[in-house]
């Protein structure tokens, strides 16, 4: 059985997650082996996922951590003996 490119596109995400049923995966695999277009779509999608998951791409703003912990400290120190959600009476 042979599937067309547009049907392979429906399986790109499942293929990347390795969540396709074995028969479907084999079909897609066979198509990718000879289809330059679909294998480039698969590669580009995979590479975009690698980029978006890469921590180096996303940086925290300068001073973010200091400002966050200063604000938390103010909140915590407001009631230093009171744990979060502790009864107030």
């Amino acid at each position, binding site marked *: 059985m042979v599937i067309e490119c*547009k049907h392979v*596109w*429906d399986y*790109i*995400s*499942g293929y*990347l*997650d390795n*969540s396709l049923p074995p028969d479907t995966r084999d079909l897609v695999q066979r198509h990718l082996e000879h289809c*330059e*277009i679909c294998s*480039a*779509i698969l*590669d*580009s*999608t995979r*590479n*975009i*996922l*690698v*980029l*978006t*998951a*890469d*921590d*180096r*791409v*996303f*940086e*925290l*703003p300068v001073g*973010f*951590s200091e*400002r*966050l*912990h200063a*604000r*938390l*400290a103010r*909140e*915590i120190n407001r009631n*230093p*003996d009171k*744990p*979060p*959600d*502790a009864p107030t009476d």
Partner: protein
Amino acid sequence: MIAAILAGQTEQYHELIRPYERSVFRMALSFMKNEFDAEEVAQESFLKAFRKLADFRGEAKFSTWLISITLNEARGRLRRQGAVRIESLDETPEEGGRISPALLRDWREVPSEALERKEIRKLLEQAIASLSPLYREVFILRDIEELSVSETAAALTITPGTVKIRLHRARMMMQKQLAPQLKNANPKRRWFPWS
């Protein structure tokens, strides 16, 4: 550590949340689309998590719980800004047509030398921000925070099947938008338009 904080050692909360600062900010930024609002959302989320820490039962991972709080905080703020109503008009129906990917003849390599370039970061942020909220949430949790399908489903209170459908569409939208842009951002590579 959570038990110690609840028992009164509240200073330990600083250490508890340090590993999650980046992911909470990134989640917030994906929704708020500017760093100032994202930082506000991130701070509020950490404060809410502190106040509600006694509600954390340990059934989910702490990171998933924290992300859920951030998600709600971002949604609430957007709702107050009136942005959700506007964005929802652009919502693509889940049963909608197939999303055709960008057709490129060749893209074999990750442009790793470009990772620290602000230009690439901006393109990624813009592409994520351009997804409608239903797809953006799933994409962020699965492909940025790297939660499993079931963890994503739990955080968003949707079924695993819906996660998979939305994720597929989100990934195809990202490919369609980003593949041509990233190719152009790095012209020395052997990337050719398919024409």
